[in-house]
């Protein structure tokens, strides 16, 4: 794929198998992209953040970029720490 988000390689006694991957912009999960895969099978494109998303996030709908989720996680942790927990 063009501008793959990652690269995976399986090395075995039968040889080497390579594949591209991309990382879901909403949940940070890695999606393996088989050669000549049907685009609908490997997720989709979020037209709000304009990045690739995994099939689960496609079915969920909406757009909460992973950076936003990180901020929410960290903000909660900071608040708990300020309470002395």
């Amino acid at each position, binding site marked *: 794929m063009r501008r793959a988000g990652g690269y995976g390689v399986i090395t075995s006694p039968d040889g080497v198998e390579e594949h591209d991957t991309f990382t879901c912009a909403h949940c940070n*999960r890695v999606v393996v992209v088989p050669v000549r895969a049907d685009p609908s099978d490997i997720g989709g494109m979020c037209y709000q953040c304009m990045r690739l998303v995994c099939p689960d996030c496609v079915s969920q709908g909406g757009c909460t970029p992973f950076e936003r989720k990180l901020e929410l996680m960290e903000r909660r942790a900071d608040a708990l720490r300020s309470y002395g927990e």
Partner: protein
Amino acid sequence: MATYTVNNKMGGSQQNIGTSAKTVLTVTSQTTGNRRARIFEINCGADGTPADNPLTYDVIRCTSIGTGGTNIVPPALDTADAVAIMVATGNQTGEPSVTSTAVMLTVPLNQRATYRWVASPGNEFVIPATNVNGFAFRCLSPVYASTVIFDVMWTE
């Protein structure tokens, strides 16, 4: 940004995997001085006697480091860099608390094979700057009952 690496051969005694997911390594944010880390490379494979058995490796978000593990000081790739903020714990005997819906990567693999995943910039696994939050690297097999190795590299 500094780059660090760790694997579960660097500390503690390797634990045998079984039919349920066995954590062999965790990389988590420490309790103070939190900052984010980005895991950009993962290597995994079995290091037992070669045979044809199915294994399933996975990477899952965790919120604890488990019990019975050995704290491993991750070496920096550049020796001029400071000590890592992330905490690496290997060869746990008790499983960490994991977020069951946050399996980030699953790799079914033959015992004789190894797997390497490398992320391009911007596509790494991100560890939030949250106390003891990070990733657990696990393996299970219905047949193979020996040891595996996970090797992880990240920047922080």
